[in-house]
């Protein structure tokens, strides 16, 4: 088909011309969007049997606090006995149950990380059930967890994201930090890439949510790469204080330094002058 300039120019005042341009524009925008927009991490596929098995587990282990239908339980004075889990997504369940934070052993300012109560399959089933209630953050796909593949540039950018968004609570090497009223930002040592990712998308406990619009999945992977790098690299310079900073240095100075040198001073002070002695 050949369009001459003239043909176009004669039809440009056609009553439908505006509409055609609008449609073309929308198509182009949508096409660009679907091509370039940050993709949410790939959701896992669950079967109806997973959901049913998860529901059964939920009724036994979780419903006493979160309600029969995960709608949450409100106390008489309006408090929150267990929050609603509708819409928290599979990632939240996988994080909370997979790190042993849920079920909670006791009421506390914050659920601590502990040995998981449910095995991997049960955790998957619980996730399937909660994911079936309403859409929410999904468990991240493998490609965003392969932090070993991140290059130097990604590592540097991950570090920038980490220092800007995370170190204020989690410390510059992820050693953790204190928060008000007995709460704390837990250490990131020994936390799997998947759980770090899930924490970012779900914002468990005191943590803010870093959704895919704030930090893209690729950048999340870079952040994870930086965390893993600073924790896995050798401790240049000798025994470290676990990344806790100058407080530990102060303890070392006073106990080892001053303490040890006083020991030597006592040793030197206890020995008088030596001179050759001859038996008379």
């Amino acid at each position, binding site marked *: 088909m050949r369009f001459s300039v003239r043909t176009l120019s004669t039809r440009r005042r056609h009553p439908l011309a505006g509409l055609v341009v609008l449609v073309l524009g929308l198509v182009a925008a949508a096409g660009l969007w679907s091509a370039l927009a940050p993709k949410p991490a790939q959701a896992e596929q669950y079967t109806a049997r997973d959901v049913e098995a998860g529901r059964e587990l939920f009724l036994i282990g979780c419903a006493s606090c979160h309600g029969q239908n995960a709608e949450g339980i409100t106390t008489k004075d309006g408090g929150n006995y267990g929050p609603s889990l509708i819409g928290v997504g599979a990632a939240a369940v996988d994080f909370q149950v997979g790190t042993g934070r849920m079920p909670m052993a006791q009421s506390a300012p914050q659920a601590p990380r502990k040995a998981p109560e449910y095995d991997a399959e049960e955790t998957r089933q619980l996730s399937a059930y909660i994911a079936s209630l309403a859409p929410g953050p999904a468990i991240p796909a493998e490609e965003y967890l392969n932090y070993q593949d991140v290059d130097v540039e990604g590592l540097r950018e991950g570090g920038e994201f980490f220092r800007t968004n995370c170190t204020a609570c989690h410390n*510059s090497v992820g050693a953790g930090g204190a928060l008000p009223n007995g709460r704390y930002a837990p250490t990131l040592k020994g936390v799997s890439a998947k759980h770090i990712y899930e924490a970012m998308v779900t914002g468990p406990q005191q943590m803010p949510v870093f959704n895919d619009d704030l930090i893209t999945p690729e950048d999340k992977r870079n952040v994870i790469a930086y965390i893993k790098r600073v924790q896995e690299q050798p401790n240049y310079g000798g025994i470290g204080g676990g990344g806790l900073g100058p*407080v530990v240095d102060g303890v070392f100075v006073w106990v080892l*330094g001053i303490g040890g*040198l006083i020991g030597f*001073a006592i040793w030197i002070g206890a020995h008088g002058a030596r001179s050759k002695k001859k038996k008379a």
Partner: protein
Amino acid sequence: MSTDTYTPVEDTGFGKKAAGPVGWLDDRLGLAGVAKKNLRKVFPEHWSFMLGEIALWSFVVLLLTGVFLTFWFQPSMSEVVYDGSYAPFRGLEMSQAYASTLHISFDIRGGLLMRQIHHWAAALFVGAMLAHMLRIFFTGAYRKPREINWLIGVGLLALGMVEGFAGYSLPDDLLSGTGLRFVDGLIRSIPLVGSYLEFFIFGGEFPGEEIIPRLYMAHILLIPALLLGLIAAHMLLLVYHKHTQWPGAGRTNDNVVGYPMLPVYAAKAGGFFFVVFGFTALMGALVQINPVWAYGPYNPSEVTAGSQPDWYMGFSEGLVRIMPNWESTFLGHTWSWNVFIPGVGGLGLLFTVLALWPFVERWVTGDQREHHLLERPRNAPTRTGLGVAGMTFYGVGWAAGGNDIIATQFHLSINALTHIFRIGIFLFPVIAFIITRRICIGLQRADQNKILHGYETGVIERSPDGSYAERHAPLPVTEQYRLTAHDRLPALEAPAETDENGVALPHGRVAKVRHRVRSFYYKGAIDKPTLAEVEHADEHLAEIEGHPVHLGEDFQGVSETGIPKSH
């Protein structure tokens, strides 16, 4: 018997060889006269006299390692793109100061070791000065004629802290920048002039581009020069006053019993230098300090949990952390009491009290005499109590500076800790004072008991009527002397408020206050036994009637296995 024999140095092999060059030097410098007097100068011996030496030798280590670091450190805040060997930062924009610190740490042979030795030695330097100062305080060594030397010491401590802080800020990493921001806050909290002062020091808004070069100048030139000068003055005064000594047999206020500078102290002090150098080198080699790469370059919008100053500024940090958030606005200015009182006020209070103490104590005791014999801490119960109270105050502030680390490591609530510290900073020093003074008085009683009733021999005797008692034997005279060589307590008389005509005396009020403070100062202290009491006790202890066995003159108590020891 053995006798000590010495070979004159000029007859030794070394002496014969050295005679030529030494003679050459003496002909030109004429040092023999000065050296002859000073090389034989006598210093007393005690381990606690070496605390200041730790500080001195740490300072030498600091000079040596510091010179090494200046070869590569770039005190500039201009931005560069990092291309060194620490991979996570490659391509990152950072200041030249930070980049060169990373360069020293990762790309200069021995650079990280030198950096770590330098940092450990710095922390040790201030720590040793503080420990040395506590020794001086608790033994009363700052009394006349040494008040000026005490003031020089206080100045050295303050300068040491500033010097350490300047060094902490130089690498321009996230931690040091945060520390700089803290001090910026302290400066700005000074009423009225704060903002102007900040602009003057930083050359504009924080952080600007001037502060690192300026701190560098202060760190490697200005403050070290001042420190060196003050250290020289400190040592000259020490030689001029002669070193204080512990009381003991043969030791008086007018002599010094000890060993000569050469050869004994030259060897001991020289050896101790190598011990200190070895210690800092070992710590630098084995224990990580200030891993600048872990923090990242400074960016005013970033911060890391667990940001702390080095230990010597922890006190100041802690006071700011526990201060209630008081702030007021009037006269068109913001008055940041929340930072000014604990930050500037805390350090100001610490150094003011330290500087004034010798003069306050002299005013209270009215003691105008020279003192060259040290006072055992127990024999000045109020001073010792106040010292421990001061340490407790400092300790609470110090601990509060690490409240976040305490909270996370011991699973405590940081809010609860803040409340404990807020109350504790006022309460704990008082409790510490009362307990310490009681302990001192208890120890004084124990001394008195030993003098008047002898020491426990471990010999259990059974009397004819079947009761058991432990035999006591008199202390050796030298020991009795050591325990009683301090001054008798002064008589405390209420001052006259009026003269003989019933007219109020001009300084009646001050005298009354002074009398009250003085009574408090000596309250509860036990005076040493009088001569009559000691003689009476000697007679009593010498009685052998009723004891089955005569212990004899040379009895030295029994060993752990129950066998009597003798000379």
